[in-house]
């Protein structure tokens, strides 16, 4: 838990408490004068950096209950700010606390406006804190801080008057249904015990009359007076108040009970009348913070700094956990790898032992098998021109006029080329990566019709008949006539002389492409 500097300022004394680990560890009191301020500055110089929470106990305080139309966000802030400025023109220390919604039809918002109407009371002390560079976390009025006492003591009374003797006078704070309604600080003579009883009784009666006038509580209603007696010196007063006011209960909280129920040291209760309130302030700051935004700048930065450092810590922890998890898994994985390597080595040694009994082989069993199988397949799938020549022979038997002059054959993915098959170089042989597709046999026939006596029609019929017979063979996929003796294509020009004697040099040449079906 972070350290805090808790400062209680009153017109006469200033109490400074160092909060650490959920309790006050040091409590000092300074006079509210120049000497006290000088001592306070020295004390601050010796202190570490920590946020300062300031509590003020002064007569110059004001409380107002207001009902405002229900609003949200900036509208609410603007309306509340305007109201505060209307009420408190001469101070910057003011606050509005939303108490809840009204029970009427409009369900307006109920506010408690509070202010320290004499800012000069704390100006020098604030300046000393600011000069030291300590952030100011908040400025609170003592009655607001005192509300925390009811929570700590778990008081159930409907109408409760908290009465405590302070350095500046008698502080009477009224709570209805545990909600703050009124607080008074009276300056009266409380010297002798008999006067003090009367003084207490009178002030309690005055407060009841005031509450009656404000219509906060009637005189007939039962009231519980909680008398805070930090010095165990108000036993008679408690008895006297109860005796003089039959309609109220007076409960005295002595030093021992206060120390026990609040968890505060006896020595602190003795050191300052404000130690109780500073302890409550250390435990929990009330909502009604009077400090303006300009005063809180340092604290905002302090909080931002702490948040960033916390984020740093969270990041570092997250990164450490993440990295640690990764490293842990890495170690586990490496362990598994080593186990697997050991098993592999063991199995390999067993395998080696077994292979010593194998026949001596030039390569692995798999390579032996594959090599022999590839050789068998190469032999089994070897292709020669013999098949094409056989079916060509069958076709020629029925076509005696056809004479083959040139025969080309190819077994490959692509068909044999129509021209220049013999002019290839070895570089034009199948490349390292053959084109995709199944290999098939193809043949190119270059021949002529003999005898030829200029009868192109008859020659073309003979050639087409020969091609047709080839195409009828079941192994043939395609027969294509590439060249005919006479090109009758209407897209080309054609010339000649009918007086030419074909027997003296005319030929009826043709070219056929034959493609077999791929082997299954």
């Amino acid at each position, binding site marked *: 838990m972070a350290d805090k500097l808790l400062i209680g300022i009153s017109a006469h004394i200033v109490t400074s408490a160092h909060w650490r680990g959920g309790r006050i560890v040091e409590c000092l009191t300074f006079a509210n004068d120049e000497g006290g301020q000088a001592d306070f500055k020295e004390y601050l110089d010796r202190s570490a950096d920590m946020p300062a929470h300031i509590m003020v106990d002064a007569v110059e305080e004001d409380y107002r209950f207001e009902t405002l139309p229900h609003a949200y966000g900036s509208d609410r802030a603007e309306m509340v700010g305007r109201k505060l400025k209307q009420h408190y023109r001469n101070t910057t220390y003011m606050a509005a606390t939303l108490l809840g919604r009204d029970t009427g039809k409009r369900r307006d918002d109920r506010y408690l406006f509070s202010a320290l109407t004499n800012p000069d009371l704390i100006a020098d002390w604030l300046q000393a804190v600011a000069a030291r560079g300590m952030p100011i976390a908040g400025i609170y009025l003592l009655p607001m801080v005192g509300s925390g006492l009811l929570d700590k003591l778990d008081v159930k009374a409907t109408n409760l008057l908290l009465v405590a003797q302070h350095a500046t006078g008698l502080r009477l704070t009224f709570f209805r249904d545990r909600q703050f309604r009124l607080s008074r600080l009276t300056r009266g003579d409380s010297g002798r015990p008999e006067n003090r009883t009367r003084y207490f009784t009178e002030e309690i009666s005055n407060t009841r009359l005031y509450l009656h006038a404000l219509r906060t509580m009637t005189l007939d209603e039962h009231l519980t007076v909680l008398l805070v007696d930090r010095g165990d010196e108000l036993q008679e007063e408690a008895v006297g108040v109860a005796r003089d006011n039959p309609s109220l209960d007076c409960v005295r909280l002595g030093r021992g009970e206060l120390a026990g129920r609040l968890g505060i040291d006896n020595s602190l209760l003795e050191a300052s009348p404000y130690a109780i309130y500073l302890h409550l302030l250390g435990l929990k700051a009330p909502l009604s913070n009077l400090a303006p935004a300009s005063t809180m700048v340092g604290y905002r930065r302090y909080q931002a700094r702490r948040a960033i450092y916390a984020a740093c810590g969270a990041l570092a922890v997250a990164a450490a956990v993440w990295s640690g998890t990764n490293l842990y898994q890495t170690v586990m994985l490496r362990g598994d790898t080593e186990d697997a390597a050991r098993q592999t080595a063991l199995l390999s040694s067993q395998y080696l032992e077994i292979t010593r009994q194998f026949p001596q082989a030039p390569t692995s069993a798999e390579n032996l098998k594959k090599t022999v199988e590839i050789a068998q397949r190469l032999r089994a799938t070897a292709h020669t021109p013999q098949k094409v020549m056989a079916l060509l022979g069958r076709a020629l038997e029925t076509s005696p006029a056809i004479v083959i002059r040139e025969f080309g054959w190819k077994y490959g993915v692509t068909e044999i080329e129509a021209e220049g098959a013999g002019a290839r170089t070895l570089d034009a042989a199948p*490349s390292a990566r053959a084109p995709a597709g199944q290999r098939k046999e193809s043949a190119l026939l270059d021949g002529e019709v003999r005898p030829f006596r200029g009868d192109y029609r008859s020659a073309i019929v003979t050639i087409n008949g020969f091609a047709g017979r080839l195409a009828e063979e079941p192994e043939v996929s395609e027969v294509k006539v590439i060249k005919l003796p006479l090109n009758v294509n209407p897209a080309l020009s054609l010339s000649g002389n009918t007086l030419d004697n074909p027997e003296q040099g005319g030929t009826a040449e043709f070219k056929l492409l034959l493609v077999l079906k791929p082997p299954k």
Partner: protein
Amino acid sequence: MNQADLQALRNPLLMVAGVALLGALAVYSSGRLMIAARQQLAQQQVQLKDARTRLHKSGEEKDIIVRYLDGFRQLERTGFVGEEQRINWLDGLRLANQQADLFGVDYQIGAQRPYAYAADFSPGALALNQSIMRVRFRLLHEGDLDRFLDALARQGAGIFAIDQCLMRRIDTRGVIRFQPNVNAECDLSWITVRVGASGEQKKP
């Protein structure tokens, strides 16, 4: 938050940036280590699985060696396995020419290169190579082509595939006597296989 606030919070912001950077670096580095360890484990597990399979199939492996070793040795002798035996090929050509009663064979052998249709045989770790041999010879008639190719295959000089052949009739002006009547030219792919260093047996 204004400029003054940022100035006041400069050091904490620098620190958070530094911590974030260092944290990211630590997470990244440790993550890389973990990924590398995971990959090593995966590799080791594959090796373990291989070793287990190999041991499990060691009996089967022995059977394969016994069954295929002789055939493999025979292929080594023919020159199918290992380095090319071009002298054997030329001897084979010479003998085939004699046995087919041809008029001599011209040859031209190209540089060795990977076999173009190796993928059809799924060779795995084996390297199939080919050298194209172009042979030119003259035939008495077309039937001699088949006789010549059969004779060449019978020589046991290796394994070859016929890529293509071309036969062209020679104009003899109608004279009939024992003389070449057909010019022939064929491209043969002599195929060899390389199985790694000689005597190397696959070890785990």
